[in-house]
């Protein structure tokens, strides 16, 4: 009889306990996963290096500057600070992608929540006890972003409207709306610049003792653990997984699809909103028009590389935090725009899909993306290598 292999990964928590015959053995299997996660990044760095050469820069110096700017002499703390919004957005994306729903409106959701927080924070932290105001602001941010997903969520739940389009449109609207709010009701009256009032330093999130890292990072890590637990161990997480793997089966086994879709969207938005709160209350203290860090754009490939597993995404995010913090500095030194990072990210995504294809030809069933996201699941099972 054919030997079947278990898939150790986000899809099958049960499998981890049992010892089952695998074609390659557990150690080789783990090595295989590592290779397929790291090689795309390496390839992208090489390709990016070539592009740098073409533009007349020295890639080695550039990458060395990244290390310097990202890790050395205390910069690691700046990298760690960046992990806060990255992790929370990654959590928001992981939840929704597991359900095979494409929430691509993360930029707008983030920005609108950030605007709301920046707008209300000065008043709230002034009038209320600080801890209470902080919690309230976090909830406000989460609620704002969650509500902003409601239109795409309902359209998809009721009419099956393609959410890629609706979330993108809402995102563009949100970016403009945020500008209007910042110039309008949230505008800091004491300055002609289009920005909100700056939160006094002592009212912002406290730091972890001995460091500059604000506690928003701890909030992010806590969220990662909670989300991981919910997704892999609870009945709700299983429902999400089924929705992502096979929506028809979800309906068949009695899962209420419209409700699940909407809740998944709201959860995703809420986490993204938390990211905005952490960033504003922990790092920036205010917001101005024209600011759009587009964090989500840059961490999407890592969410996939981690195979939608929250624990696995942490090291990737750590790596990227260093890359992005150091990258800003390196780009400045080289006279390049920071948009260069977008190129690297795009390359990582491309190499990731190629490596996935090559890996698929060797073995069946392994995948970076949960089967529901990668609609070509049927293809590798039947693309047999002729004996």
């Amino acid at each position: 009889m054919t030997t079947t292999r278990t898939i150790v990964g986000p899809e099958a928590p049960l499998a981890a306990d049992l010892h089952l015959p695998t074609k390659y053995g557990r150690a080789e299997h783990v090595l295989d996963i590592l290779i397929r996660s790291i090689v795309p990044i390496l390839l992208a760095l090489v390709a990016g290096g070539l592009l740098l050469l073409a533009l007349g820069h020295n890639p080695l110096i550039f990458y060395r500057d990244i290390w310097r700017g990202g890790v050395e002499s205390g910069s690691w703390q700046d990298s760690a600070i960046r992990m806060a919004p990255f992790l929370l957005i990654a959590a928001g994306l992981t939840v929704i992608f597991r359900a095979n729903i494409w929430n691509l409106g993360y930029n707008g959701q983030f920005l609108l929540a950030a605007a709301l927080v920046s707008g209300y924070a000065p008043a709230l932290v002034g009038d209320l006890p600080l801890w209470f105001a902080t919690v309230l602001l976090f909830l406000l941010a989460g609620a704002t972003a969650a509500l902003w997903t409601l239109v795409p969520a309902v359209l998809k739940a009721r009419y099956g409207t393609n959410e890629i389009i609706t979330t993108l449109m809402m995102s563009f609207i949100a970016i403009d709306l945020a500008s209007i709010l910042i110039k309008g009701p949230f505008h800091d009256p004491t300055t002609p610049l289009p920005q909100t009032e700056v939160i006094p330093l002592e009212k912002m999130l406290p730091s972890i003792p001995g460091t500059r890292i604000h506690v928003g990072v701890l909030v992010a890590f806590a969220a990662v653990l909670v989300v991981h637990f919910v997704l892999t161990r609870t009945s709700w997480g299983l429902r999400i997984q089924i929705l992502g793997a096979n929506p028809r089966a979800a309906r068949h086994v009695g899962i209420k699809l419209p409700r699940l879709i909407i809740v998944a969207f709201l959860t995703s938005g809420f986490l993204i909103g938390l990211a905005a709160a952490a960033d504003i209350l922990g790092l920036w203290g205010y917001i101005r028009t024209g600011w759009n860090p587009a964090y989500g754009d840059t961490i999407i490939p890592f969410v996939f590389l981690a195979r939608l597993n929250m624990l696995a995404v942490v090291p990737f995010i750590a790596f990227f935090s260093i890359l992005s913090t150091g990258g800003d500095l390196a780009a400045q030194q080289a006279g390049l725009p920071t948009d260069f990072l977008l190129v690297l990210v795009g390359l990582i995504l491309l190499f990731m899909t190629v490596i996935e294809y090559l890996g698929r030809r060797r073995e069946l069933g392994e995948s970076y993306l949960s089967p529901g996201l990668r609609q070509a699941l049927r293809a590798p099972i039947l693309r047999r290598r002729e004996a």
Partner: protein
Amino acid sequence: MNAPNDTGVPIVQLVGITKRFPGVLANDRIDLALHGGEVHCLLGENGAGKSTLIGILSGLLRPDAGTILIDGVETTIASPRAALEIGVGTVPQHSALIPALTVLQNLMLGDNRRLRLDATGARQRLGELADLLGVEVDPDTKAIDLSLGNQQQVEIIKALWRGSRVLILDEPTSMLTPQGVEELGKVLARLKERGHAIIFITHKLHEALSLGDRISILRQGRLVGAIEPDSLRSASAEDLRAEIVRTMFGEAARAVSDAPELQEEVVEGLHVEPPAVGADTVLELQHVTAPGEGAELGIDDVSLELKEGEILGVAGVDGNGQRSLAEVIAGQRTPARGDVLLYGARVTRLPVASRQKLGLRYVTDDRIGEGIVGPLPVGLNLFLKRIGQRPFWRHGRLQRAAVNRRAAELVREFDVRTPSVSTRAATLSGGNIQKVLLARELSFDPKVVVFHKPTYGLDVRTTGTVRELIRGLAGGGGSALVVSTDLDELLEVCDRIAVLSRGRLVGVVGNGQGAAEEVGRLMLGESDAERAA
């Protein structure tokens, strides 16, 4: 059975064809010859390798070894396009017509000689071919609106469009009414007269006997028997049947010998045990109207009653409302009008999960698309309809030990062949997936179970097991509603048979002598009322 017109060089000859897939030898050194003017039946149970062989002939697959000779010349059939150019046309089991396009557009597809579509020429050719076959086809109807019989006729025309001499029909009768099968026979006869070579795949013995001039029998990838035209004409039906069954199953013949697929004629109501008189009605539909989906019709003003201990069948040509009916009962579809009652209580708006708790179950026909979640382990699949419930979940948390323990018990009880309960469900064979679904639906105290095409595509042994389970359910006080397009199956298993035609319930027939003909008539649309008038 007509004598073949041409006994010279066969148009197509397969010699020593071998094809391997990972883990299975689908075709093992098969020899086959197709002569002009002859219907060659390829007989074998599901999984014997028939589809693979046909795939090779139609250019979808390439053989690992062996030769193909066309008119005596060694040829390679490299792609479907090559097959068409050689003159081999295929009528697939599931319609390859594009539903949103018209008949004419479907027929014009692939004719890339000129940029501009030649609609006039196409219409003419359609007329010619339709006359040839003795059928009528409207070129401007959308494929989605055609009846299944008409669809098949268009498929045959499409296969002949570019002048094919060889016609492959893959399980063509699986979707037809008994009368439709007769009409198909007439069409094939006309084609034979013109010298076409026809190869006809089926797993039903009586079809092979009635329609074939020559029979080749496949078993587990090998050609195990061939019946020449002379023997087919001279020997008696019973003798032929006995020999074929022996060839197909060897020593195991006796065990499966009762299967309706292996009888020389259609079987009617051999094993019927109707429920006791005065039994309660457990499931009732009152004037239910519900929408269809895509190409499938919905149901219109359907009323039926299922009694305790009864096996009620629902017959009908595919797409006439079966899925709508099944899903309305299960709770996956909301009726626009009418009510569904379970034990007398209205459950019309009750969600799926609640109905399951009341003992209502649904074994879906779409095993892989809807029944199981492929990437999940077998164990979890067995309890998908109890997500969040004790003892498998406590306070929302998964209890792995409980799941594995109970899953192992079920796997043993239902004889599911799987390396372990943690194996991904998608890797199981079709028969074992069906067993998983049955294990899921028939555990935890089922009372009313809807079976949709429960034995479709399964080998004879598993088919027997499934039917035993259905009988066991009814015998033990439960009730079964069996929705199937396979009339043989319904006649074998059901106490009464209801007939769905174009979404309406046109009659209910008690199983027994003459039931097949009655059902066939109802499927054509003649309702009881019309006949009484």
